[in-house]
Structures are given as C-alpha cells and as structure tokens.
C-alpha cells in the first residue's frame, strides 16, 4: 500500500463519520427506517451530546456535577427566544444558545469550582433547581410551568433532523478528540489524575477546571439548542435534577472519561428504554435493576477508560492475527 498511515486513518474516519450521518438519513428518506425509530435514534443523538458534555466535566476534568441539565435548558430557551422573538436563522440561534450556556458556565464556575468533590456536586444540583424555578416564574419568555411550543423544520422532517443532530454529534466528537490531545486537554487530564502533582508542575488548576467547565457548558448548550427545535416543546423541568442524573447515568455506564463510551451508552440506554415498552409500567422497574446489575458486575462501565477506535478495529480486521502493529 502506498497510502501513508495518516491519510488512511483520515479517509477511514471520514468515511465512517459520513456514513453515520448520511446512510441512515437516506434510509429515513426512502422510508426503510420509520419515523418512530428515526425519532428515537435522533433523540439518542441529543442524549449522546449531553452525555459527552457531562463526561467532559465529570469524566475528563474529574469534577462531579449534578446540574448539567441546567445548561441544556439555558441553551434551549435561548435558542427559542432568539429564533422566535429576534428572528435569527436557526443555526445562528443554536450557536447563540450554546454561547449563552458557556457564559453561564463561566459565571457559575467562577465561585463554585473552588469547591471540591461532593460539595461541588451539591452546588451544581442547587444551580439546576434554581434555574428550574426561575424558568417556571419567567412566564413571558418560557411559558411558565406548562412549557413552550416551538415548531421548526427539525420537528417536521426526520431526515434533516438526523443529518443536523448526528452531524453535530460527529463534529462534537471530532472537536473533543482533538481538544483532549492538545496542551489544554492534557493539562485538564493531569488535573483529574492528581491536583497537587499537576499544580506543582506549573498547571493552574482553577484555569483548567474552568476551561473544562465552560467547554462542557457549551456542549450542553448545543444539545439544548438542538433539543428545543427537534422536540418542538420545552418545559422548565428540562433543568431538573432528574434530567442531570439521566445524563450522568450514561456517562458512568459508558465508562468515565471515555467519549465513545458515553455515546455508545446514550444510544443503548435510550433505545433500551423504548425497547422495554412492551413491559408496560414494569419497564420503569427493569431499567434501574439493569443499572444496578451493570454497576455490580461491570463497575468501570461498558468501555472503562478506553475509547472505541475505528482505526484499531480496521487494523485488527486487515492484519493477520499475531502480527502486532509496532508503530502505535
């Protein structure tokens, strides 16, 4: 083969990413995947973006948070306001939502990131609940406790929704994998591993915790800003503690710190919740039992700290057994 490893990997990953975005969209378009299934998996895509967001702050930066859904709600409501009242085009509104969430993350992070461990978890929990109450009471903007309707093209056509949302998911993954391999990413990982050791090597703990927190808030804002136009309906409950816990569950089940693990867990669990519907109300009982069993028998989560790598899968497929690749 004359292609260099770098080009081959690029083509391989690009191909996988394009296929993940375009092939299902095509199948939805021609009706091979029905609208119901398409909606479940598109929702799983949003859940995956949220799971990544929680993973950045909890798995990668090592700060437990229980209020990430608050940023999602900020993103959702900002997106609605900017596209309905200020009449911004949707992509711009989504970006504004994400930026608002990131700014909120900056403001919240400033006083709270000095706390550690469970205390930080509690403060973020409180933050989410405060936001929920505020959203309930800002009736003019948010529609109060009954929520607000919001119809756009994403809710109307399933294939476009798939392309937009899964496309964003893929872009988020690419961005984060590169971010984690940058100087910033390495510094953040070192803060997670050992704060004191990182600090004595000249890494400003607070700065990097803040970086992780703001990036996570931004990603959560993106997820929220996509959720609102896709579902077409937003309630202040979006910011509630239960929501944040749902996303934390994806992260722990997928493996802390593993971005692909979170994505996988988000898809599996979102589908599982729908799949278990034939059990009627017992479904709500089976889901937590499965959670406990996974925690008991696979405490490190599905993937642990590892990442699912298409490059590695490709190498294993193309190379004969025993011939280990020495270069990496």
């Amino acid at each position: 083969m004359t292609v260099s490893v770098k080009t081959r990997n690029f083509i391989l990953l690009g191909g996988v990413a394009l296929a993940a975005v375009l092939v299902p969209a095509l199948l939805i378009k021609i009706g091979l995947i029905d609208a119901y299934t398409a909606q479940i998996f598109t929702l799983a895509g949003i859940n995956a973006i949220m799971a990544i967001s929680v993973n950045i702050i909890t798995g990668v930066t090592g700060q437990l948070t229980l209020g990430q859904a608050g940023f999602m709600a900020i993103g959702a409501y900002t997106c609605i306001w900017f596209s309905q009242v200020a009449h911004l085009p949707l992509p711009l509104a989504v970006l504004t939502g994400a930026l608002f969430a990131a700014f909120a993350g900056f403001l919240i992070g400033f006083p709270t990131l000095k706390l550690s461990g469970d205390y930080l978890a509690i403060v973020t929990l409180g933050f989410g609940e405060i936001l929920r109450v505020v959203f309930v009471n800002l009736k003019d903007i948010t529609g109060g406790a009954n929520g607000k309707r919001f119809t756009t093209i994403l809710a109307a056509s399933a294939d476009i929704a798939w392309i937009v949302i899964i496309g964003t998911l893929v872009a988020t993954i690419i961005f984060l994998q590169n971010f984690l391999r940058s100087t910033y990413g390495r510094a953040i990982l070192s803060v997670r591993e050992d704060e004191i050791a990182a600090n004595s090597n000249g890494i400003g703990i607070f700065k990097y915790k803040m970086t992780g927190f703001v990036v996570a808030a931004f990603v959560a804002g993106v997820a929220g800003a996509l959720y609102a136009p896709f579902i077409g309906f937003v309630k202040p409950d979006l910011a509630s503690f239960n929501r944040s816990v749902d996303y934390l569950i994806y992260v722990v089940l997928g493996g802390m710190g593993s971005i692909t693990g979170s994505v996988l867990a988000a898809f599996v669990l979102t589908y599982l919740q729908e799949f278990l519907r034939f059990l009627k109300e017992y479904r709500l009982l089976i889901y937590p039992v499965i959670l406990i069993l996974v925690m008991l028998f696979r405490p490190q989560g599905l993937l642990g700290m590892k990442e699912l790598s298409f490059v590695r899968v490709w190498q294993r497929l193309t190379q004969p057994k025993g011939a280990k690749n020495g270069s990496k």
Partner: protein
Amino acid sequence: MESLIIFFQQLINGLSLGSIYALIALGYTMVYGIVMLINFAHGDVLMVGAYTGFYILHAMGPSPHALALSFIASMIVCAVAGVTIERFAYRPLRSAPRLNSLITAIAVSLILQNGMRVLPFVGPNPRQFPTMPTVNFQLGHIGISNIQVVVIVVSIALMLVLNYIINWTKVGKAMRAVSFDMRAASLMGISVNRVVAFTFALGSVLAAAGGILFATAYPQIDPTMGAMPGLKAFVAAVLGGIGSVPGAMLGGYILGVAETMTKGFISSQFADAISFSILIVILLVKPTGIMGTKVRVKV
C-alpha cells in the same frame, strides 16, 4: 407591628418544617459520615414510611393511638427496608468507585418510586393522608396548630434519643469509631458491617418518622413525594456540614426557617430557589458547611 407578627408566625412554621428537614437530614449525614455515600434513596424510604402510616391510619381512623401505632409500624418497616437496601445494593459496592454507589443509590430510588407505582394496592395516584382535625392555639396574635406542636415535639424527642444513642451507648461509640476510620475500627474488633447496617436502620427510622410528620403537615401522599423533601433535607445536611450530626439538625432548622420566611416576606414561588441560593452562599463562605470539619489533604 404587622411584619413582626408575620415574622413570628413564619418562625413557628419554619421551626415545624425545619424539624422535619432535620430528621431526614440526620439520615443523610449519618450514612455519609460512615460510608461516604450520598444515599439518594433516603427520600423514598420516607415515602415508604408515609405509606405505611397511611394504611394504618386509614384502617384505624386518625386518633392519637393510631398515630402512635403508625409511627412504630412505619419505623419497623423502614428499618427493614433500609437494612435490606444496604445489604443488597450498597454493601457489594463498598469498595467500588464512589460514583458507582451514587448511581446505585439513584437506581434504588427509582426502584422504590416505580415499585410503589406498580404495586396494585398503592398505584400512582395521590391520596389524602388521614390527619387529626386541626386545632389552633392562639398565643397573642400568633397561632400554632396542634399538628405543628406534634411535629416539633416528636422530632425534638427523636433527636434527643438519637443523641443519646450516638454519644452514650456502645453501638453509638462503634458508629463514631467506624466513621472516624473504618479500617482501624475493624482492626479493633468492631463488626463494620453490623455497624453500617445499624446506621442505615437508624437513619431509616428517622426517615419514617419524618415521612409521617411530613404527610401530617402536608396531607397528600404519592410515590414521588419523597423526592423534594429528600433533596431539601440533603441540602440541609450539606449546609450543616455533611457527616456532622449536630450540623444536620442546625441545617434543617436554618433551611426550614429560611424557606417559610421567603414565603412570608418575598414570594412563595421562589421559596425553593431561595433555599438553594442560601446553600450556595454558605458553601462559598464556608466550603465544608457550618459544622463540617476541614479535611487536610496530604501529599
């Protein structure tokens, strides 16, 4: 003068609400002090206690005898529930990463909530909790109801009993030892498993009492009723310094009074937001809670 009356009236309401929060918060703080686990299922144990009380009061009618019996029965049911949860859900995970126990606790909470919902004789619909007829005593301009008196007296009595158990009995000494250093305690011949089980039982007993008192004060029960008081009590426990028993009592009263004061003077819609804001402000000033001890990090 008008606002002074409101102040004292809300102070009494707050003390009554705060006693309930304090009772529930004690369960959180004791469990956290010993196994470092945020027991998110605690609020749902409270719900189980309230339902047990409901069935007894429903069968016997709301008399003081029935109330006393319902306290005892629901304490027994909750103690058994608490020990069972600890044995089958938390004990196998005691050496696992802490986040795993946290997720397990959340899963247990879901199982309790949804389990009650699918049980044929409970069901998802809210029910009216049978209470004694309310009698209001007037102290000048300030009113206090018999229910508030019962809530305050019962909780203070239970807290005194708890204080006695922790500080003056052998098992209380063992609890303090395990909380101080689990491994050293086990080397000194203390059965850690038994002490942890006892702590869960004790916490659940208090939650059962809290559940009946909460249901008496706000007489409507449903399978998710434990979530909000559970969360608030948890905030109270953190406020007082999680792991500290007097801290949990203090935190409960502070939160209760703050919440009723907000309802009386500012706005009833924002009461929840205010209590969480107080939490954030206090943690920013004193990051380990009011009575928490600072853990020194060694390299």
